[in-house]
């Protein structure tokens, strides 16, 4: 056969290693390798690489699966009613379950259900806010449900859902533009998440949820690559989450706080 004796290409050597070589070239390549020690060494090195990669990562498949991969839970979220107007619920439900497991085990989700016992706690709010932050800041195409261009509508909608006139800060002086917002399930009912973005793509979120906790000073919490500032004012808990840089985040949180404080309604809706 003509094929048998034609020189072996480098592509064929790769194909040989990967089992992609057509059967009628197998022998030719084997013969070629026998006669060309340089290529034989190359093929051996590639095989050794593959073995090392499999040895290094092969065992991961055998590790016990973390509970957060529980498909049943993930699927339950997926099978939520999904008719048009309820469509977003599906995403919210999935996100909530996701968020819970991301928090480590089932604590987050249980805390959600059992939040009546201790609503308004710093941990609960910051955990939920950071989870939402983590999930949505990486979204490229759908980070928010309603965009910042529809700001009046957005604020009105979420104020209505939280039954509280929300003050949404303009962080332009911090170089942040409002991307938009979304509704989330929170520890005390609906929660709102507003996202801001810097020209370099750095994202911050401001989370709002009702609480009966007393007014607090700002408290800081760091969680792996992100961090958050939490405060309570007039029956509303706020969490500003952002990248891990504490000082920068504090500036942003402070700016938000000042604006909200300045515009705070005399009588909070209760």
């Amino acid at each position, binding site marked *: 056969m003509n094929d048998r004796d034609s020189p072996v290409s*480098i*592509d064929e050597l*790769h*194909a040989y290693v*990967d089992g*992609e070589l057509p059967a009628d070239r197998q022998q030719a390549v084997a013969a070629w390798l026998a006669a060309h020690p340089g290529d034989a060494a*190359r093929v051996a*090195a*590639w095989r050794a*690489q*593959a073995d*090392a*990669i*499999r*040895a*290094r*990562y*092969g065992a*991961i*498949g*055998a*590790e016990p*699966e*973390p509970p*957060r*991969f529980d*498909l049943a839970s*993930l*699927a339950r*979220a*997926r099978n939520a009613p999904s008719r048009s107007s309820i469509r977003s619920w*599906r*995403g919210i439900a*999935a996100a909530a379950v*996701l968020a819970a*497991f*991301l928090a480590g085990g089932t604590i987050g989700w249980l805390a959600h259900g059992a939040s009546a016992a201790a609503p308004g706690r710093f941990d609960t709010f910051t955990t939920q806010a950071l989870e939402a932050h983590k999930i949505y800041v*990486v979204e*490229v195409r759908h980070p928010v449900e309603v965009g910042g261009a529809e700001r009046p509508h957005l604020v009105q909608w979420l104020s209505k859902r939280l039954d509280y006139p929300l003050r949404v800060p303009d962080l332009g002086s911090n170089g942040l533009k409002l991307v938009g917002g979304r509704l989330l399930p929170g520890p005390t009912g609906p929660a709102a998440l507003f996202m801001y973005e810097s020209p*370099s*793509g*750095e994202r911050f979120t401001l989370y709002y949820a009702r609480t009966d906790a007393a007014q607090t000073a700002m408290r800081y919490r760091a969680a*792996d*690559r992100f961090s958050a500032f939490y405060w309570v004012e007039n029956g509303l808990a706020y969490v500003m989450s952002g*990248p891990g*840089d504490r000082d920068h985040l504090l500036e942003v949180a402070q700016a938000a706080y000042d604006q909200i404080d300045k515009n705070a309604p005399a009588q909070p809706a209760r």
Partner: protein
Amino acid sequence: MPALRRYARALTRNAEIADDLVQDTLVRALRSEHLFHGGEIRSWLYTILTNLNRNRLRALARRPVEQTIEDNDAAGSAGPEAGARDIERALATLAEEQRATLLLVVLEGLSYREAADVQGVPIGTVMSRLARARMQIKAYLDGERPALRRVK
């Protein structure tokens, strides 16, 4: 699913990020109508995961302060032996799409055709990525540390 985790771990070299990716992949998968249209689920899951990782890296690239590579593997408490370390480091020097191609073929056993579909490129591109990846790993392991990490 174990295979998906393994691929994610090798791709990101970070247990936590890898598991996040797997989970996001599952959620996307569950939400998609694709599940009901039959088709090749396995490749499709690799496709989602590969794309999510690419998006993640793009997002990271826009934030220069973030650390993108972690050499240590949280799960390996005892610390992997030298050989495992070396291959890990060698993989880390590859450009993202080369690493993905190599792992899909070598670790996950996908055919060239499948790897091409997963990455949305022609087979020829898979082959050239594979060739460059293997060349670079060999160079690295032979002690010729690349001065520059290829960044795409």
